[in-house]
């Protein structure tokens, strides 16, 4: 009789025993924690900038393209390097983390310095994007995309 009373007190009813409730709360907690963790670490904005490179067939001929609608590296001979600068700015009222990646067929030749940094509100950072053309590169047109990722910085 005492046992039955105790069980009755520790449950919300036959259809909602305490173990089930605890499991649900635990699951909800895990889901909520995962969501918060994912939210805090997810990149919430990305800017994509096209990159173009023309590997010259002449070791001493270089061609410049100073257009600002993309990262034009111009005509770069094999063994040489081209570079462009850009400014990344944060216009939000809170600090943001920034990470820079590259994709496309020139990814392995691309270096961004710095490639990972933080920006305070209304702060900017100059990034040097370089392409090192290997000596054995085939003269051709190469393309890629520079991806600049942003996320809110959490304390």
């Amino acid at each position: 009789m005492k046992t039955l009373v105790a069980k009755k007190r520790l449950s919300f009813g036959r259809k909602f025993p305490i173990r089930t409730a605890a499991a649900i709360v635990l699951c909800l907690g895990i889901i909520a924690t995962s969501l918060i963790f994912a939210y805090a670490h997810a990149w919430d904005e990305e800017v994509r900038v096209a990159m173009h490179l023309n590997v010259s067939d002449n070791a001493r001929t270089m061609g410049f393209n100073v257009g600002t609608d993309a990262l034009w590296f111009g005509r770069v001979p094999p063994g040489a390097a081209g570079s462009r600068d850009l400014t990344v700015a944060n216009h939000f009222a809170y600090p943001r983390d920034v990470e820079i990646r590259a994709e496309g067929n020139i990814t392995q030749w691309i270096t961004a310095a710095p490639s990972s940094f933080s920006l305070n509100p209304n702060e900017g950072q100059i990034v040097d994007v370089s392409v090192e053309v290997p000596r054995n590169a085939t003269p051709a047109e190469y393309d890629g995309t520079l991806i600049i990722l942003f996320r809110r910085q959490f304390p």
Partner: protein
Amino acid sequence: MTVVSKLSLYSLAFIALFCAWTATLPQEPQHTKQASVTLFAVTSIRFYPGYETVFFANFGRSGTRNRTNDTTDDSPLPFAIENDGVNDTKPGQCVNITIAASNDLAFADDYSNMTICVPIDAGGTDCGTRRAPALANSFYNTYNGITSWTTIRNGRSAPATADIYGLRPRNSSDVQGGTFLIDVNTTIGINESIGYHNVTLTVTATATGNWNSGTNICKL
């Protein structure tokens, strides 16, 4: 009664969860602008030592005079610079060119130096008479860049830079415009140290305005 209590509990729980969720929503940015990425209208090309770019061969030290070699006889070949970037939808930009030598060319003899020159037909440059020079119309103004051999590395002193102004853009129907050669000369003093002497040349183009092919004017 039991049903009402349960509903109340569920409602309270829902309200509590809703409040908790809304309380943790991120704040809206105070600025309507988001992150911005701005590209500079400047681009550089670097030539590293050790590559076949310009190799001035071996200089013997047994002589009593300084040794000199240059690219004006196409051996080795000079550098060629083009201002690309014109296409059917947008005009090209005029650029200024800056040439710089890195610090790693450390001569031991004060008489050793590296100089450059731009051969141009209307400029009367020292290096312009020995072979086909650049056309004067490669530049949107009267050529006012390097008109004689200009030192970019001299003995043990710090390297200097050389500027070439107002190179207009080159387009597909314009084979020779917007392009020029850079001749390089090197002189090795009789007391220069034995071994390889290399330099990294960096050529930088900076936009100075949009080219108008109708008026032949470059406007900022």
